[in-house]
């Protein structure tokens, strides 16, 4: 979606954002609802400033991100062997397929109450939700990616005497990478939803979802809105910088085309 830079577009975007903010402000100031429920912009701004200044925001965001990344790492460690086996060996595909298709349609958050019973409230339950949410996009992308590696490359490498290890490192892995990166992107999106939901329901000690949940107890809409803004900013930053950079560094540099749009 690259577009030529245009000042008109920027101005229009600014107008759009301003209109939304102005409507909110008018609504908040109108006195239709108490300001605790619809806080005006300046109080949301003050809350954002306070949360940034005393470090609550950073602390909780780091806790949430740590859960996302530990969960993604576990998912990745599980998904790569499963996906590769499924793509390379026909029997493995038949063995894993029924389990995957039974678990795939279950929303990860449906498991939260059960995880809480089994593992107590807190980190383990939240982490499991992240793993569950991100596992399926990863398995499917590794599986599809490895399957779509040009068989000609595999045969050529084999003929040239590549053993399984070299074949995997030099042919299959780079060949499957466009899909795997798309899968990671999808998995991050799912994990991000899962972690906020998990934090809302399983209440670990720290986390952005936990802030929102606590703020709900005190009817503090200002803190909720400030945290939502933070969640939005982090989401955009990851999408824009981390994943696009990852794509540039690997896929494009190795001359593979980008995978399908997610």
């Amino acid at each position, binding site marked *: 979606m690259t577009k030529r830079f245009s000042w008109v577009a920027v101005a229009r975007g600014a107008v759009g954002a301003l209109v939304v903010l102005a409507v909110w402000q008018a609504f908040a100031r109108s006195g239709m609802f108490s300001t605790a429920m619809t806080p005006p912009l300046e109080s949301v701004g003050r809350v954002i400033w306070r949360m940034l200044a005393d470090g609550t925001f950073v602390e909780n965001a780091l806790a949430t991100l740590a859960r996302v990344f530990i969960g993604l790492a576990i998912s990745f460690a599980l998904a790569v062997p499963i996906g590769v086996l499924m793509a390379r060996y026909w029997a493995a595909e038949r063995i894993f397929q029924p*389990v995957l298709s039974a678990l795939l349609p279950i929303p990860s958050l449906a498991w939260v*109450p059960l995880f809480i019973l089994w593992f107590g409230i807190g980190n383990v339950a939240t982490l499991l939700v992240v793993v569950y949410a991100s596992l399926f996009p990863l398995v499917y992308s590794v599986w599809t990616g490895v399957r779509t590696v040009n068989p000609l490359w595999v045969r050529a490498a084999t003929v040239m005497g590549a053993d399984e290890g070299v074949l995997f490192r030099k042919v299959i892995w780079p060949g499957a990478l466009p899909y795997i990166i798309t899968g990671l992107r999808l998995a991050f999106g799912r994990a991000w939803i899962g972690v906020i939901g998990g934090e*809302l329901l399983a209440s670990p000690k720290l986390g*952005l979802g936990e802030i929102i949940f606590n703020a709900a107890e005190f009817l503090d809409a200002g803190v909720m809105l400030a945290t939502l803004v933070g969640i939005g900013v982090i989401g955009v930053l990851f999408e824009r910088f981390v994943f696009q950079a990852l794509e540039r560094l690997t896929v494009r540099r190795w001359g593979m085309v980008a995978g399908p749009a997610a």
Partner: protein
Amino acid sequence: MRRALSIVLPLATCAVVAAAWELLALYGGFPPKLVPGLGTIGQAFVRLSANGVLLAATVATLYRLAAGFALAVVIGVVLGIAMGRRQWVEDTCLPIVSFLYPIPGLAYAPLFVLWFGLGDVPTILLVGVASSFTIIINTWRGVKSVKPVWLRSAEVMGARDRDMFRRIVLPASLPYIMIGLRLGLAQAWRILIAVEMLMSVQRGLGWLIFGAQTFLNTDVMLATIAVIAALGVLLERQVFTRIERYTLVRWGMVAA
């Protein structure tokens, strides 16, 4: 041989998983309240089906899903098409949409409770709003991807705005819109189950799981999760494949 194996292997996996669960339940040393055997889960399923609790919950959840998704479709398709057809709408709305898009819908839940109270209305609103973004983005991309040659030829041949939309823009962008609807429905489904846990609605599958937690009814929770899985598959396989057949395939936009 291969053909026989392709039937036997999946069945074997199911049998192994079931047996492992049963062994864990019987000899794993966990309290049977927390890890119920398959028989107990089956009994819970039969009991809940017989007394109508499961049916009532399913109907309530599907009603919310339908209402929320309908809202999402209206918002998503209308805004997506407007953004695709008119540059100023795109310029004005795209920054807001792309900022709100990555915020998990569930994060709004406590705020919606604060604004709209508990129950059906905030649940439906939240599901609708949260799943509309995928539909907006995909519809917008679809309308943008309509070949300019088609638009120009239709214009030259004297198509009015309405015909242009009905005959060209809509069919041509439909594959994308359908992807958006499909992703949107899946998202609405996932959010709905979780929102039902937070919004303390009257009935519903998410509520059933959450309520069962209070009484340590693990068998009820697992039986409900199984129903959720089955419904998820049905929604995807039956509803969407059908809609696709009636529109895309029939209009010749994609191969059957």
